[in-house]
């Protein structure tokens, strides 16, 4: 009995081997169809996961989304300040956020070609804006900034009539200082009217050592993630006022939802279509097998056994095609990620087993038209009637 089972099994696999190797051209077409389907599936699923994460990073092009100010400020002229230590604590908290401390003071600006102009003097870390405000135009982009350098907003620069490097005289109360203006900034907002100097210089100018007006944070993530960060920050600094910059946090959430819905829908459609495409190709090949089915039935093969044979063949093909396709999908998703976001999509391991499993399912489903063949009488197949 066991011998019979063993022989049966050996025969089963032998037929499968023959079925697969009988027509190499057909095998190639089937693997190609399945592989292409799996590759597209894997790449799109990967992109779908990665793109959403990437989008939240892209949104930081809008600049900071969280603001920390002193809790008891009502007089909004920022005369109440925070301790700069907060910045160091935030950096240690590991939120993955860009952090920029700012000190706002009113001062008078003059250069040798212009009279005194009252302006807002902003103390900041030299390269705060590079990470916080990627959309702003800072010219020229310098690799290194000296302590005595300053950056001037575009409108202020034109008001002071200067081009190129200039020495600017800044006075706050009775304190005065000269700085070399070697960068201009254009933002389209209030920053165009301001002058930016080193934070420590501003602090000594305003006689506010280690004090800042506010901290701007660019926290990556979706709205719930950002809200979590805000809650954490607020708990950590109960005296300060931590709040989202609603213009961007709310707008972004809306836009993110639209884009991610759109992406999900489109990817869903493409996956459906890919499945359809693979099924069409596979069904096509399966229909050619009616002679094989007829012959097997003629020599006594039970419908179930014949069917099982073809389903196993399909599953094997699906597995092989899925593996090849998933491997190709890794490269495809890297390429797609590079094309869209300029950064290769990080492969998500979960995506690949899913892609292989889907391919096997599709392959098995595609073999189902054979069921219909199994009901046909072998004699009529051989007479060429079916």
């Amino acid at each position, binding site marked *: 009995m066991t011998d019979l089972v063993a022989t049966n099994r050996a025969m089963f696999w032998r037929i499968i081997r023959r079925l697969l190797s009988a027509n190499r051209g057909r095998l190639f077409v089937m693997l190609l169809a399945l592989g292409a389907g799996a590759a597209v599936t894997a790449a799109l699923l990967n992109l779908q996961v990665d793109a959403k994460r990437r989008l939240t990073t892209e949104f930081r092009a809008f*600049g900071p989304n969280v603001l920390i100010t002193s809790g008891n*400020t*009502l*007089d909004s002229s920022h005369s109440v300040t925070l301790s700069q230590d907060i910045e160091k604590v935030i950096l240690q908290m590991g939120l993955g956020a860009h952090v920029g401390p700012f000190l706002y003071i009113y001062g008078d600006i003059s250069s040798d070609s212009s009279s005194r102009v009252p302006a807002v003097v902003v103390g900041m870390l030299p390269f705060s804006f590079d990470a916080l405000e990627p*959309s702003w135009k800072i010219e020229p982009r310098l690799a290194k900034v000296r302590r005595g350098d300053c950056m001037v907003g575009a409108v202020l620069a034109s008001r002071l009539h200067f081009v190129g490097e200039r020495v600017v005289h800044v006075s706050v109360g009775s304190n005065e200082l000269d700085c070399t203006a070697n960068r201009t900034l254009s933002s*389209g*907002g209030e920053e165009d009217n301001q002058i930016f100097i080193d934070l420590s210089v501003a602090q000594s100018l305003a006689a506010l050592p280690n004090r800042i007006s506010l901290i701007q944070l660019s926290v990556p993530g979706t709205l719930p993630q950002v809200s979590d960060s805000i809650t954490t920050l607020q708990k950590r600094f109960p005296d300060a006022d931590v709040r989202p910059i609603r213009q961007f946090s709310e707008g972004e959430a809306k836009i993110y939802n639209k*884009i991610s819905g759109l992406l999900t829908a489109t990817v869903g459609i*493409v996956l459906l279509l890919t499945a359809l495409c693979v099924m069409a190709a596979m069904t096509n090949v399966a229909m050619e097998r009616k002679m094989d089915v007829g012959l097997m039935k003629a020599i006594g093969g039970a419908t179930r056994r014949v069917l099982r044979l073809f389903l196993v063949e399909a599953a094997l093909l699906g597995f092989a095609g899925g593996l090849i396709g998933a491997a190709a999908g890794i490269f495809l998703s890297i390429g797609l990620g590079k094309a869209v976001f300029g950064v290769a999509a990080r492969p998500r391991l979960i995506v690949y087993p899913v892609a292989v499993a889907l391919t096997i399912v599709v392959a098995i489903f595609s073999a189902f038209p054979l069921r219909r063949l199994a009901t046909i009488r072998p004699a009529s197949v051989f007479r060429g009637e079916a």
Partner: protein
Amino acid sequence: MFLRLVTDSFGRRPRRKLLTGAALALGMAVATAALSVALDVGDRLAKEFRSLGANLLVTPQADSLPLEIGGVDYRPVNAGAYLPEADLGKLKTIFWHNNIMGFSPMLEVPVVASAAHDHVPIETPGNFTLIGTWSDKNVLIPDGTTYRTGIAKTNPWWNVDGKWFGDSHQCVLGSAFARRFGLHTGDRLNVMSRTSEGHAVGLSLAIVGVLSTGGPEDNGIVASLGTAQALAEKPGQYRRLYVSALTKPEDAFAKRDPKTFTPKEYDTWFCTPYISSIAFQIQQELPGTDVRVIRRVAEGEGQILTRVQMLLWLVTGMALLAAALAVGASSAASVIERRTEIGLMKALGAGSATVGFLLAAEQLLLAFVGGGTGYALGIILARLLGEKIFGVAPEPTLLVFLVVIGLAAVVTLLGSAIPLRRASLYDPAPILRGE
């Protein structure tokens, strides 16, 4: 005879033809839906991006330097230049007037205030800023029509608990202000400003709502532009104008200096809703102004729109490719099945050209029927998608129809061309013998 053969082939095996046609229709439906959505998405998303508010800022050209921190101007009333409110209707007369989604002027007045709750006075010490703007305003356009706009369109993230102020003697209070002094909707607020001549102007305002913006406005008072003008004694004037415009993301062409354009390039630039060309047109309509692009909003929007569109086009490309493959495969299958028939026709004396033509005609007919059905299905699918995601269905366009029908025809022909070519190489005899 030709027509008869074609109709006969459809009539004889309706089920098989239906299957091929269904595959075609499905593939084309998906192609239509993906294309419609991808074509439409730029406009739709651009509209969504307007929830970020204004992307253009208009200020007087001959202004003194604004002393702004966090979006609030702290200059005294007598410093700086003003712009006439009466000109604002002209904004809706520029070439791209349909792309102007909203605008609101602003005038800030430094004030001191005192409040009254149930006629009990409440002290509110400190200097505050009263922002005058439009809550919901019917602007008279020079062509005789009116246009409704206001702060809700340019600053959609401003939430008011209660209602917005009307035209006069009403205000909304910043949430931090209200919380600090325990003021509520229904209380009264007396504000007083000092104007240039040194005399004070006072007004009594009813608090009709509490505003939360997450910005410095939370500490201030927002009232109608007329109120602010009265307090500042600057009737009919404003200081800043925020404009929210639908724009096309800037490409390399738009980033060039308009002064270097040839006349033809200039026309192209002028007639494209780039933010720079809209800014230029506004500047022409409102003389004496400086129109600046709020880079944080505009650049961020442009960058994200470009990326999302590219992403969608890639996915749509994949959808089209997959649809083409599916349709090609099924039409190839339908030709392979008919090898016997082809052999018979050739045995009866038909040339390869005639057979090819007959089959091509059949396939084309199928492509048009299947493609048309697919288009109709796809439009429904696109509607569902569009309504689900954006609340607005994309408009069916002729372009998509033509592309889909063309694609269906090309793909079915290509799909059947390869097996047809192979079939035409065979001798009829072995095919008929079943070899």
